[in-house]
């Protein structure tokens, strides 16, 4: 008990514990909401995990990995921004533009798969980077806060897709695009067969490779060191001779590129078409992924897996127990709230540690 108390009073340990406690609190609040609305939380959570394939269904687990893929990338996008001192709340819009560009290449160009697919992915990355570049320029040249400008860019993206999709790429309904041909799809038959027909795709490898690349850039290169220095202290970085403005723009572009790639994996790897009038919530979920992963690439991959499980299992949970699938989004919101309100959890931990101390002292006297 003494060791636990000492462990809990250390600030660094507290910071490491916060993600885990936030997750527990998130599921706890979810359970309370279910009890109030008359559902059995244990049954629902069990079905959630079953739906995500954790009880051995390979096809369902494949779907979990499919949803983990864009979450890893949007999480990386937000985390990379945070490490370099930028809050990229526009991952949703960058992801949407990336996906839109990939779908456009998929539908409007006719090429063999070896060229078509890489082209679609590259264009998606470029579109995301471009959508991130403008807020970067506005920040470096005019000191406009990236939160405000990326929010505006999100909605510009929504209305851009809203116009171009029905006009040039209409599918069965005018609210969605046509389905992309197989030559532009990130899915491969052998991969699908490996997971018993799930929609798992090549995007997962791209996401994991990106995580590795970002880790390498941030930890092993001078460029990454400079970016982090700008994030820690802009003025000090400037004084040390780092080109702050250029680095802000590059950071936003890299962050946007990651979100654009997320769009490619989601729209040409999973849905096969794009719907108009909505921002993908996966971009905002990326904030949660980054927060829980403490903005490190490995942490991002792990928390993306958790959110992948929750997103993949929610449909099954709703069908099996009647609990509305929005429960998962509620839990994610609560997790973000607690992960942001670090002071609250720290206060509780300190209180807990202090009480232990008092009891000990009282016991010693008696």
């Amino acid at each position, binding site marked *: 008990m003494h060791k636990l108390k000492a462990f809990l009073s250390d600030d660094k340990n507290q910071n490491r514990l916060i993600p885990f406690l936030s997750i527990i609190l998130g599921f706890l609040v979810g359970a309370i*909401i279910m009890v109030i*609305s008359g559902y059995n939380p244990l049954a629902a959570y069990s079905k959630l995990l079953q739906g995500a394939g954790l009880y051995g269904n390979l096809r369902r687990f494949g779907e979990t990995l499919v949803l983990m893929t864009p979450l890893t990338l949007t999480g990386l996008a937000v985390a990379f921004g945070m490490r370099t001192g930028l*809050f990229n*709340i526009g991952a949703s819009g960058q992801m949407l533009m990336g996906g839109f560009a990939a779908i456009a290449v998929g539908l409007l160009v006719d090429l063999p798969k070896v060229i078509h697919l890489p082209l679609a992915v590259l264009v998606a990355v470029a579109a995301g980077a471009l959508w991130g570049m403008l807020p970067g320029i*506005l920040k470096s040249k*005019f*000191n*406009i*806060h990236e*939160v*405000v*400008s990326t*929010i*505006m*860019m*999100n*909605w*510009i993206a*929504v*209305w*851009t897709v*809203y*116009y*171009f999709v029905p*006009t040039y790429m209409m599918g069965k309904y005018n609210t969605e695009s046509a389905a992309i041909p197989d030559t532009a799809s990130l899915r491969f038959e052998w991969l699908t067969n490996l997971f018993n027909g799930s929609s798992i795709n090549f995007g997962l490898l791209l996401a994991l490779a990106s995580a590795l690349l970002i880790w390498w850039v941030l930890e092993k290169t001078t460029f990454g060191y400079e970016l982090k220095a700008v994030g820690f202290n802009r003025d000090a970085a400037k004084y040390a001779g780092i080109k702050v403005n250029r680095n802000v723009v590059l950071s936003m572009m890299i962050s946007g590129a990651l979100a654009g790639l997320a769009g490619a994996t989601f729209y040409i790897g999973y849905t096969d078409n794009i719907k108009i*009038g*909505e*921002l993908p*919530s996966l971009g*905002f979920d990326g*904030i949660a992924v980054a*927060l829980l992963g403490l903005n490190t690439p490995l942490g991002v991959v792990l928390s993306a897996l958790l959110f992948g499980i929750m997103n993949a299992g929610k449909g099954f949970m709703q069908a099996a127990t009647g609990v*509305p699938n*929005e*429960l*998962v*989004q*509620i839990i*994610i*919101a*609560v997790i*973000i*709230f607690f*992960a*942001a*309100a*670090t*002071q*609250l959890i720290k206060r509780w931990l300190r209180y807990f540690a202090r009480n232990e101390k008092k009891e000990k002292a009282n016991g010693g006297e008696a």
Partner: protein
Amino acid sequence: MWNLVMSIIPLSLAYTAPLLIIALGGLYSERSGVVNIGLEGMMGIGAFAAALFTVSMQGTLGGATIWLALVVATLAGVALSFFHAFASVSLNADQVISGTAVNMFSAALTVYLARWITGSANVQIKRFFIKTDVPFLSKIPIIGPLLFGNAYITTYLVLAIIVLSWFLLYRTRFGLRLRACGENPHSADSMGINVKNMRYTGVLISGALAGLGGGIVIMTYAKEFSQLTYNGLGFLALAALIFGKWKPWGILGSSLFFGTAMTVANMSIIVPALKNVPNIFLNTFPYVITLVALVLFSSSSAGPKASGEPYDVSKR
């Protein structure tokens, strides 16, 4: 042409009213020093609460239902904004992250409850505000039918609130104190103002007004609750707040501007003169113009100086 103006202006006013009141909510919060990205969520919970209240009470309460629904919407907004205030003021949390959590929580909780209570993600209401001509005033030539004909009474409620807010913020001691907390909380504190209380007040008022805005959306032109009825209106209000330079009359102008743009965009399909204008220009217009405005304002920083910074007593 006259007919076109006659049909656009009253509709624009209907669209402007909720936008304006939500942006005004943002004003209270940001002037007190707390960034409020959560406007969208606070509006959403207000919209849902109004719809739910109307559905369950429209049979028993009769004509009073629609007014009580607006009260319920306001209270729902206050309740949700409390979490944002608690995180940003008492816990010094990142205000943007807290606001994002509020948005996600509201979007998910409302649909969860809608599914649980009514079985579908939509809630349709049978009682709502009906467009009327304001007696006498609508008889004035030219201005009468434009500003007072075929209008929702809530629009005038909103205008009354904005006049009241201007008075409160710029002509009373409370307003000066609230604004001081958003400009320089340390000197406000040194003058004996309780910064935390002021910021709580600012955020809770913003929740109330955003909730009311959501209620107005449902009780006037939307007439049903679903995620798509208000998709992005809270963010548009944020744009109106910035474009209006964080000032009551400024946001009145910017909301009217954006409300008209929204109306024209929605009507462009049926109006022959606008048929060939791609809707992308009208729809993205508010956001693009806000970015342009930000560039133009950038040298004269228009926003509250301490907005977004947690108040830390030990930092001077």
